[in-house]
């Protein structure tokens, strides 16, 4: 029998149902691993020992009464961007270091409703702005595959925790690749759903038109179970999609034979690491073996996605972060002289450098006289990029490419060069601009480090994405590899 922390969600649910172990034991097991490993990894900002055991106790009662569902009693970690009632919700920022949310995010509420047990809150780049988890006020997260390296970001704490088996599942959010890139760098499976599929209520906004919550776990199957509980219309979020949620678990079993997959030409050109390219080739060969048809497709405007993104996302963030003004919650400077002093010092002290940089970029882009040239133009580019995808999906069912141009880079390697950092999201950003669903799953290791294979689906085709990923995972073992010392 495999160790508890190596079991899939289905195996855990089966074990709980058969009383092989209780939810309380499960929670204790993972809390024990957190105590053992997180001092080095720094995946969690807050650990909720007592509350986790209380929730696990309730889950055990539910299971005993035969009222458990597929996720009841299973522990998870929430990215610290999700509001959790009564628990510190910092968003990785000193600004919210003192903030205890008075309410639960819809994602939190739904997963709790399914009986999941929250172990704690995951570290992240400050306000989800970063690709390496180095912008967190709580210090960088270390990649369990090599603690000299970054886990990716911004959902780096979630990805590293799942990779190190500190939790069987975690939530993440993805504005420009923040689920897929850390999933790729940590060797786990992470899905960014279609914009609007999962409610944003209670998820602290970075760039509202791009933000989307999704599951992070070790396999596509686990992600399917999590997404089924997270997804769905929420009347509290006007941008959430009012359409039924597909049966993702049922969709997993379909054959891949004849599925047309488009290799995105632009994602394999210069800038892609050679080892990464080889890993992609191996993954594509495995897909062909399953009967998938691979063809080359082009997204001719994808090269504009990074510049368009770095106008739209900062513009929205400059407005979204205006509420952190030291007046009602969050950090307030000591003894403000007057109102302007209160604003200036509270915000200067509360926000880190990357957040300030983006607020300034965004403020500039929206200013009178620059709006048309920047924001409006970027929105037009966004439309052109979405049209590229529409065109591609006439020919193929799915798109494929790497999730990141290289494997995990070293801590500090890019922190002084923002543009180099921004380019690590070069393959993920276009998907957010178009609002499409996409996942990253482990490909073969490259020099001992994880490489992420990205699959992109058409709108609301999460089921098909998970299906192809699951079929690939049934016949390969890349997703089962565990970083040394965490097995």
């Amino acid at each position, binding site marked *: 029998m495999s160790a508890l922390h190596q079991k899939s969600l289905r195996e855990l649910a089966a074990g709980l149902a058969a009383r092989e172990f209780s939810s309380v034991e499960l929670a204790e097991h993972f809390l024990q691993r957190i105590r053992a490993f997180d001092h080095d990894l720094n995946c969690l900002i807050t650990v909720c020992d007592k509350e986790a055991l209380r929730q696990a106790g309730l889950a055990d009662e539910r299971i005993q009464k035969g009222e458990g569902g597929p996720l009841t009693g299973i522990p998870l970690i929430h990215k610290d961007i999700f509001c959790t009632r009564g628990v510190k919700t910092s968003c990785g920022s000193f600004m919210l270091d003192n903030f205890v949310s*008075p*309410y639960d995010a819809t994602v939190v509420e739904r997963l709790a409703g399914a009986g999941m047990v929250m172990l704690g809150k995951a570290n992240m780049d400050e306000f989800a702005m970063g690709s390496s988890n180095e912008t967190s006020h709580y210090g960088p997260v270390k990649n369990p595959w090599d603690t000299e390296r970054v886990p990716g970001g911004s959902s780096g704490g979630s990805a590293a925790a799942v990779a190190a088996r500190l939790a069987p599942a975690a939530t993440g959010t993805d504005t420009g690749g923040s689920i897929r890139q850390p999933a790729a760098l940590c060797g786990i499976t992470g899905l960014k759903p279609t914009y609007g599929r999962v409610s944003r*209520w*209670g998820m602290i906004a970075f760039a509202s038109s791009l933000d989307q919550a999704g599951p992070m776990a070790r396999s596509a199957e686990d992600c399917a179970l999590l997404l089924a509980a997270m997804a769905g219309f929420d009347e509290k979020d006007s941008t959430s999609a009012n359409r039924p949620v597909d049966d993702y678990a049922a969709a997993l079993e379909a054959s891949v034979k004849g599925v047309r997959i488009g290799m995105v030409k632009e994602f394999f050109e210069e800038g892609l690491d050679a080892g990464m390219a080889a890993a992609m080739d191996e993954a594509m060969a495995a897909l062909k073996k399953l009967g998938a048809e691979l063809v080359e497709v082009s997204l001719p405007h994808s090269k504009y996605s990074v510049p368009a993104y770095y106008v739209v996302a900062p513009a929205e963030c*400059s*407005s979204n972060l*205006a509420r952190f003004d030291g007046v009602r*919650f969050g950090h307030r400077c000591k003894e403000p002289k007057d109102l302007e002093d209160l604003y200036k010092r509270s915000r200067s002290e509360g926000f880190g450098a990357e957040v300030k940089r983006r607020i300034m970029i965004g403020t500039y882009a929206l*200013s009178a006289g620059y709006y048309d040239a920047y924001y409006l133009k970027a929105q037009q580019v966004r439309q052109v990029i979405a049209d590229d995808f529409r065109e591609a999906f006439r020919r193929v069912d799915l798109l494929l490419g790497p999730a990141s141009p290289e494997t995990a880079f070293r801590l500090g390697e890019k922190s002084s060069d923002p543009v180099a950092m921004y380019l690590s999201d070069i393959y993920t950003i276009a998907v957010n601009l178009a609002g499409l669903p996409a996942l990253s799953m482990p490909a073969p290791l490259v020099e001992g480090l994880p490489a992420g294979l990205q699959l992109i689906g058409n709108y609301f085709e999460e089921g098909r994405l998970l299906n192809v990923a699951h079929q690939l995972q049934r016949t390969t073992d890349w997703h089962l590899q565990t970083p040394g010392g965490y097995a």
Partner: protein
Amino acid sequence: MEWETVIGLEIHAQLTTRSKIFSGASTAFGAEPNTQACLVDLGFPGVLPVLNEQAVRKAVLFGTAIEAEIARRSVFARKNYFYPDLPKGYQISQYELPIVGRGHVEILLEGGAVKRIGVTRAHLEEDAGKSLHEDFHGYTGIDLNRAGTPLLEIVSEPDLRSAKEAVAYAKKIHQIVTYLGICDGNMQEGSFRMDANVSVRPRGEEKLGTRTELKNLNSFRFLERAINFEVERQIDLLESGSAVVQETRLYDAQKDETRSMRTKEEANDYRYFPDPDLLPLVVDDAFIEETVRDMPELPEARRRRFEEQYGLSPYDADVLTASRAAADYYEGVVAVAGDAKLAANWMMVELYGALNKAGLELSESPLSAEALGGLVLRIADDTISGKIAKSVFEEMWASGRSADAIIEEKGLKQITDSGAIEAIVDEVLAENAAQVENYRNADPKKQPKMLGFFVGQVMKKSQGKANPKQVNELLRKKLAG
């Protein structure tokens, strides 16, 4: 030089929805500070706005009433600026694409001419909270109860040429929104607020002069006075060779002057952009039809109906439809009294006179429409005379009791028994033989005037209760011999 004044008004009408425009919190006025502000109104991390459909319906009603185009697709934008009573650091408003497009209203000028005033647009937005500067010992208090209250901002064309026209236009808009029931119109509570853009130019000049924006005009009187002050100030500046500075000015009612608040250079760059938390607002024909199906009657239509249905003069109809409250009150009186003209007279002369004297609004009247109707009914059915009715009215005003109760208790019922009246008439004629003799010998042309003496005597003897019409007829007959 002769100067022409050019004015445009921006009116903020608070919409009478029960909950706020983007949250479920109550909009009721006067609650304890910060008790009607939910997490959305407080701008907490992670919260999102959801548009209140009732606010949209009210905007559609207004647009229809001013014959404006209703935009099938309109967009909410964020107006970004920092202020402590603006929790999110931005106000959600409509900017490039408002829900109500170009429309118009008509105002009556002095001398009776009608002038059409263009309404540029009307858009939905949320109100901010209130900053309270008193009683906090050097600090500012913030009350966010008002934050998120729905507003309809109604922007006029610069079609107004005097303070009087501006007031007539503002009153017309006030009349429309209160008739529609989309705004309670209460200016003391800030439900209806006005800003005026004022400039002057030499008569005949096409180009508009530099304008100033006047704020804090919370009554029609202040609107008129502030504009007049500002026009004079601008003309003085220009005539002395100076220039008008584009700026926002605050009206100080106590000093009756405007003073600079901030100049154009100090103005915020609001960095408007479409709010990504809200989808574009799409209204279809069915939604509009459903909304306007039960549209309340508008002032013009009601005025015409009053003339036709109740036979009122244009003047009376105008006065009685000045506000929806007045028109509703009047129809309440008629419903009980039956006699529409008599009802109009009693409401306009007695009731309005009494209200005026007491300094009360119609809404504060101690007499309900039903009560006044009950009194008018007793005049109409000859139970009491008009003269007695006046004393009954006074009694009703003071005690709040019904007309019938007072008439009953004081025995004021009119004498209509012809036998009883005849007895009194005979008595009076017998007691005044000399006057009877005079009357009979007088020129017939002078007789009607002389009749008054006898009528007076009979009324006095009957303590005012004899039916005057019967008294007159009987006296004429008997005096003719």
